[in-house]
């Protein structure tokens, strides 16, 4: 929405010239040890979850709230390696086709009923059931047989080795069989009144307003420190920030302007808030339609890659709060190939590559042409994402300097997807991909995934990459997998089917009353061990204590 831009500007102006908040005082927040239990943490999220069953709802708000309520067999530890959550151990058979999970003993649901492998089996059956419409069922449908021979053991069989399976078992939130058996997963009232096993359970949900979560004393991972979590639904970022300033919420995700300009310029806010910066799980790219000319020529793709100044985009659009990447993996994780460095900004090299491909400015109009045809294309991006729109504008200017004519077109999301991406009717797109924690990117890069609605919509086809992706799915040994994906990233880098533009930072502000937050932020993110966070008694809100 266009008013968002004006709102951010206005908010900046208001904050820059306004007086200090009436509620802010000069209280300093000394670090108190040891951790205390109790208190209420209030956060803001932009949209109401549609349901508490994340596998069916599919959207991030549902999955985020579900993560407070339900456990998975496995989880990622702070360094993003797989560890057990409900599972005490897991074993992959020698033929890599069977995985045996051993559950921890004494697990129970919040109502005191035991949590057993029957629940895990039930959840798997539910997700793969013909009647269930889960967007994420495909990984679980590869399981040919699942069994729960005893209360502690859960075994899955695959027809062929599938290395991303382990990651899939870290994503599946285990649901209680005794509450859901015989119910229609799509209409059950469980989605509104769930029963979980994790640190918290849902106490109150006022739709569109807030969700109140209460500590689960029977949590399978031990109790959390903070008694109550409140997630307020505040769609407008400016309103969220005003609530943060008024001390009505304790944490929010920020945009770069708030993080880098507004908070540092306000001593009162700085005294009140801690700011955290962590590398996000997504990157922005300029993707080419490789089935169209001239993008079938690697020299053109590389020329465009050299012609774009990625740092300029990071500085201009993200106020420096991002990094340039060279592979589709989060830098610092084992899957990211450290030998690759982002394509440097080198317009001379770009011009040289264009000339090699036969493009020269023969008529002196500033644009290069071949056979009388100017090198010109259209960049599509989705409406409402200002950062991508600005990125496209910066790219347009840089490409013009090397003689490439571009047009920018912004389209509403569903329209972009239905009319352009699915039928493959585009030249280039400025879009983003999430950086998954598992390295498998078969769906995005394998040549078999080019049908309408599939994710290799740029039409990338490279037999070497196909082979590496297939190999990577069969390999369970992390070291060998790492080599495979390093090689995969290298081939992609040489082929330049898209230009990696930037990976942005996730920016969070958390009130200083909240203590026990890991610093520096671990690779798994600032909220990784939020069960250890605590609010010392002197700093708690009086009105919430009174409840």
């Amino acid at each position: 929405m266009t008013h968002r831009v004006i709102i951010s500007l206005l908010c900046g102006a208001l904050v820059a010239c306004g007086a200090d908040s009436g509620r802010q005082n000069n209280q300093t927040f000394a670090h108190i040890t040891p951790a205390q239990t109790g208190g209420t943490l209030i956060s803001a999220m932009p949209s109401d979850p549609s349901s508490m069953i994340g596998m069916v709802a599919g959207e991030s708000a549902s999955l985020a709230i579900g993560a407070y309520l339900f456990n998975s067999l496995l989880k990622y530890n702070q360094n993003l390696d797989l560890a057990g959550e409900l599972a005490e151990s897991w074993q992959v058979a020698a033929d890599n086709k069977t995985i045996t999970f051993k559950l921890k003993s004494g697990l129970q649901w919040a109502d005191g009923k035991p949590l057993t492998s029957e629940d895990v089996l039930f959840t798997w059956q539910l997700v793969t059931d013909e009647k269930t419409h889960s967007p994420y069922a495909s990984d679980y449908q590869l399981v040919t047989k699942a069994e729960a021979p005893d209360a502690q053991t859960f075994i899955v069989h695959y027809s062929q080795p599938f290395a991303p399976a382990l990651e899939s078992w870290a994503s599946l939130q285990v649901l209680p069989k005794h509450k859901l058996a015989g119910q229609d997963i799509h209409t059950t009232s469980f989605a509104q009144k769930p029963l979980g096993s994790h640190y918290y359970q849902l106490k109150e949900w006022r739709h569109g307003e807030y969700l109140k979560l209460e500590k689960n004393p029977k949590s399978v991972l031990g109790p959390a420190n903070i008694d109550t979590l409140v997630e307020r639904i505040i769609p407008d970022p400016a309103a969220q920030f005003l609530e943060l300033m008024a001390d009505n919420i304790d944490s929010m995700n920020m945009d770069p302007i708030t993080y880098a300009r507004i908070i540092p310029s306000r001593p009162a806010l700085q005294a009140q808030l801690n700011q955290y910066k962590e590398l996000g799980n997504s990157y922005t790219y300029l993707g080419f339609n490789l089935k169209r000319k001239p993008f079938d020529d690697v020299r053109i793709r590389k020329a465009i890659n050299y012609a774009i100044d990625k740092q300029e985009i990071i500085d201009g659009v993200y106020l420096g709060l991002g990094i340039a990447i060279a592979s589709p993996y989060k830098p610092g994780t084992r899957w990211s190939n450290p030998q690759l460095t982002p394509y440097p900004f080198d317009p001379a090299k770009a011009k040289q590559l264009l000339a090699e491909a036969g493009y020269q400015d023969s008529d002196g109009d500033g644009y290069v042409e071949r056979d009388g045809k100017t090198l010109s294309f259209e960049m599509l991006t989705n409406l409402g994402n200002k950062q991508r729109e600005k990125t496209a504008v910066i790219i347009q200017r840089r490409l013009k300097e090397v003689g490439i004519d571009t047009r920018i077109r912004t389209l509403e999301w569903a329209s972009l997807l239905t009319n352009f991406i699915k039928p493959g009717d585009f030249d280039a797109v400025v879009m983003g991909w999430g950086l998954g924690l598992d390295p498998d990117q078969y769906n995005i890069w394998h040549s078999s995934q080019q049908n309408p609605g599939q994710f290799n919509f740029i039409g990338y086809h490279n037999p070497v990459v196909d082979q590496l992706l297939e190999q990577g799915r069969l390999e369970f040994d992390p070291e060998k997998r790492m080599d495979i994906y390093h090689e995969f990233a290298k081939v992609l880098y040489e082929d330049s089917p898209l230009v990696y533009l930037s990976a942005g930072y996730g920016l969070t502000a958390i009130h200083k009353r909240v203590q026990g937050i890991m610093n520096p932020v671990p690779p798994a993110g600032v909220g990784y061990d939020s069960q250890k966070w605590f609010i010392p008694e002197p700093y708690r809100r009086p009105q919430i204590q009174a409840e």
Partner: protein
Amino acid sequence: MLNYLIRRVLWMIPMLIGISLISFFIMHLAPGDITSTEAAFDPKSSEESRQKLRALYHLDKPIIVQYGLWLERIAHLDFGHSFASHQKPVFWQETDKDGNTTAGMIQEALPVTLTMNVIGLLLTLTLAVPLGVIAAKRYGHWQDRSITLFNFIGFSIPGFWLSLLLMYWLGVIHPWFPISGLHSLNYAQLDTWQRFQDLLMHLFLPVVIPAITGLAGVTMFVKNGMLDVLSQDFVTTARAKGLSDCTVTYRHALRNALLPLITLVGLSLPGLIGGSVIAETIFAIPGMGKLFYEAVMMRDFPVVMGILTIGSALTLMGNLLADLAYAWADPRLRRGVMPQR
């Protein structure tokens, strides 16, 4: 009169079908459906799952068949279930076999929006009528000029800008009013009187701000109406008869000047029901505007159609009421002019 009323009510049925038909087709002209939202562009989700979802919601059938299915349901007053929001009922609550009730989406959002907008409209009218009358009576004087200046400001200030300004002043610097939301977090613990107060405090900014920005238009409307009427012969006659200024202005002139206002209020009914996306988003109020906007963006067709149908029905009824009110206010219509319309 009764005949006219019956004819008008019957006429509403084909009107509603026509409106729903046009809405349904226009909505489906927009590219994409529920399976092409941002969440669906996740490499972990598969095309097969999306096809299954399309089949579940009959989106794979021709539009005319989809419309037929919708019409069949509506004939039983069944507005269906949301595609996006865990199949919540669109209109009214449902109880499952375990006795758990799930509230309808419109049922939850409509009272909020209606309360806010009705209070806002009453506030606007209460202020606009006297201001308009003063401006007309004191035409050209400083009072008129001040009101005109105020109107200019009211016209030109964007609502969201004023909202943020007042949220900052009255919510952050002087924390007198809540900044966003509709209830305090401890609402459940409050007694009835405290709940009422809590609701009023939360409603203050979202109600007052649209009222201020809407005030300008209505004030100008009343002022111009009054100016028209004040220059008419019957006012001169009334004055010549020696009636007091007060009687002329408030009993004779104002009543006539307010007639067009009835139409204006009638026309503003869809707005009262439809809510405002921007105000509801800024103040984080779960009302009809936000619900409709989100449903359109998600291509949540049952919710969009539910809101459009109920909105159209209420609008048609509003128009009918406005006509009846007009007849009540204008004796000429009562005397038989109306049936010929």
